[in-house]
């Protein structure tokens, strides 16, 4: 029999277990378990999305190999020209609008988007290759990173035609950058406690409140701001939130730096005092902000930036050991290298599944958990294998090690702390 759920149609070959009066069917294509309960002659059908931990294998075509060659030769050229020095955590701290515009001019921002919005209609795997090569080289991609990774897919999925036509081409040109406004002083891991208040007025909303730990708000042009368009309902705390595109140059917005322990300016506090946001800046449905935000998370958590933040250090470490010709020391790298190989395969498998419109959100949470642990381990391994006696930060190895170590507390916090991710995974595994 065929039936339809949320727009998907399923060919279902049912198995009936008379003993338990349960009828079930597992659809391998969509990882969907369909369960029916027989109560007398009444049949109740339910569809359960199985939180699958099984991933697809992504395959590269010869065309993808050509893409890899293209980006590698671009990076080589840029390094030779002295455009950038490899840096750890470059996707959050390597800010260079010039570099972003160069990438854009080659069609490497918004690659998978429709051409009518400035995209290139390339595959998710092509995009994967471009981003992983840029990260592995430690290139300065922070300016456009969030807009390309998250804002674009969000607007394509939920944005109005007007929003897509206005914002997407500017993002794809490397000219428009976005921040994400989630955390607040009293809403960290417990994000449902968000209280930034949006009061409905003619033609829009008036915002009052604050966001905190906002990465790049000092250089971004806009922020996707999660706010309360209806007061908190204690019965359902996820209700009443909306996502608004906020112009960060609007009157009433104050952006204050919060310096990292290294003294770098990365985080901000964003204060809203009677900030007007026009009605056409609402993304998706009013009150649906929580659900829309959660749908982005599989993209946010599974990408190569979740295990490659310290790769430039690992490459430098391998290079240092190779020049010493010390196979014993190199064998100490094997475990991390194997782990990296595994994570990359998981992450590519998720990219493949996202393109097939599956939402492997549990697997994405796992990539982030395992990947960010690995990023931290790289710094530890580097200090154990190469002595820093007589080295200072003017040595490339020491500079990268310092960046990796001093940024490492953030790896397992940003994008959902390890502890929160594990609670999500565990509940998914248990199925409750």
């Amino acid at each position, binding site marked *: 029999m065929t039936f339809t759920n949320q727009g998907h149609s399923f060919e279902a070959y049912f198995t009936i277990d008379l003993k338990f009066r349960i009828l079930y069917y597992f659809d*391998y294509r969509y990882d969907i378990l369909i369960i029916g309960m027989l109560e007398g002659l009444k049949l109740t059908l339910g569809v359960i999305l199985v939180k699958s*931990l*099984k*991933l697809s*294998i992504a395959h*590269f075509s010869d065309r993808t*190999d050509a893409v*890899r060659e293209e980006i590698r030769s671009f990076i080589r050229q840029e390094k030779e020209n002295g455009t950038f020095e490899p840096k750890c955590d470059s996707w959050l701290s390597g800010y260079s609008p010039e570099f972003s515009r160069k990438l854009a001019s080659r069609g490497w921002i918004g690659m998978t988007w429709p051409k009518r919005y400035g995209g290139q209609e390339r595959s998710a795997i092509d995009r994967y290759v471009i981003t*992983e090569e840029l990260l*592995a080289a430690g290139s300065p991609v922070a300016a456009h990173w969030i807009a390309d990774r998250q804002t674009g897919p969000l607007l394509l999925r939920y944005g109005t035609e007007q929003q897509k036509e206005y914002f997407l081409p500017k993002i794809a040109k490397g000219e428009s950058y976005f921040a994400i406004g989630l955390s607040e002083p009293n809403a960290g891991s417990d994000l449902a406690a968000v209280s930034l208040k949006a009061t409905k007025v003619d033609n829009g909303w008036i915002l009052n409140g604050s966001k905190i730990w906002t990465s790049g708000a000092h250089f971004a042009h806009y922020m996707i701001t999660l706010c309360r368009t209806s007061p908190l309902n204690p019965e359902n705390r996820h209700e009443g939130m909306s996502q608004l595109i906020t112009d960060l140059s609007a009157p009433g917005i104050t952006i204050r730096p919060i310096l990292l322990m290294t003294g770098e300016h990365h985080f901000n506090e964003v204060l809203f005092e009677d900030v007007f946001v026009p009605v056409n800046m609402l993304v998706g449905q009013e009150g649906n902000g929580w659900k829309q935000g959660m749908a982005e998370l599989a993209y946010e958590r599974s990408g190569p930036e979740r295990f490659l933040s310290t*790769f430039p250090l*690992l*490459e430098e470490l*391998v*290079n240092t050991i*190779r020049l010493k*010709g010390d*196979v*014993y020391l*190199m*064998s*100490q*790298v*094997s*475990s991390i*290298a*194997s*782990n*990296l*190989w*595994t*994570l*990359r*395969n*998981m992450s590519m*498998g998720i990219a493949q599944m996202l393109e097939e419109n599956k939402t492997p959100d*549990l*697997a994405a949470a*796992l990539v982030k*958990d*395992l990947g960010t642990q690995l990023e931290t381990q790289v710094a530890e391994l580097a200090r154990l294998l190469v002595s820093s006696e007589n080295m200072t930060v003017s040595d490339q190895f020491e500079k990268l090690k310092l960046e990796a170590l001093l940024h490492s507390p953030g790896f397992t916090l940003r994008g959902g702390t390890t*502890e929160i*991710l*594990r*609670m*999500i*995974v*565990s*509940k998914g*595994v*248990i199925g*409750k």
Partner: protein
Amino acid sequence: MNEITKLIIDATTKIMKDICTKKLVNEAEQGLWASELWDILADSGMITVAIPEERGGNGGGYADAFNILRLAGKYAAPIPLAETFLGNWLLNQLGGEISDEPLTFAYPNKNQLFRFQKNGEGWVVSGKARAIPWARFAKTILIFGQTESEHVVALIKKEHGHIELGQNLAGEARDTITLDHTFIKDCQVIPIEFEHVSNQLWHSGALTRIVLMAGATERVLELTKTYTTERVQFGRPIHRFQAIQQQLAILAGEYAAAGIAADCAVDAFKPGFQSKDIAMAKIRINEAAGKAAAIAHQVHGAIGFTHEHILHQYTRRLWAWRDEYGTETEWGNQLAHQIVENGQAGLWSFLTDKKSIGRIIEKKESV
């Protein structure tokens, strides 16, 4: 997943579930041969998968065989399925005869090869091979040796040798066979390039342990998940405690990592060729096996530590299999050499470039 693959997985799962029970696994440890399990797999054509029909096999690809083997790992099947697969594949490459009887061998140690002397119609063979999986239940055994002029592999009947019983830490049979100037009249003695064959068996043998462990890890996760929903302490099922949730999530992560590592290693597998994928998968899965076993036992508490509970049939196998066909240290050394040889292209190119070296093993003319 195509229809044939799904069919093979469904059929094997059903066979394993029905026949490979706790009782059967425990009895095998006491010395009983799981003949019914073997016969049903043989009758279903599962034993000679990945060998073309015209060569006496049942067709299909290597991935199909590794899917079957993963389920054998998940259900702790006490049979020499891995060894029979590899042995038959090697015989097929060398032009030997294929069968769906239990066949086994030990990974050849080049310092302990059998000595073969031609004697009229047959051969006089002497030597010893140790830790052969399930030799006591096998019909035939592959032994590796040397004549006066070349290296050979021979398929002998188990009865030609003296079998001493042994076992690994999972209680799986790991027996010794000794031949002492034994005259063997009719057996296949096939010349080989020893290094090439031994290298192929090292990699494909590791891949069998990789998929067996991926299967066992899945079972360990299932058992642990079920236990945390059934066991009540402080008035609630224990999965409601954050401390347990953290452990479950780490276990799920190890399972997911083991699964994709196994899939990718199988995907890249070509007999006779070595790629980095098997080395990396073996290292990663060995680590996953240790972590998964430790978490499962911690969460299960004292009951999981008893013979009565089935958990040990999987955790002991994880501990045993991670040491067979190479520990993290052995594969780590091999990788280290490859990374050094990759030169200034660096680690990133090593990880991302598709490269495999080797050649297919073919029949060799006798010297």
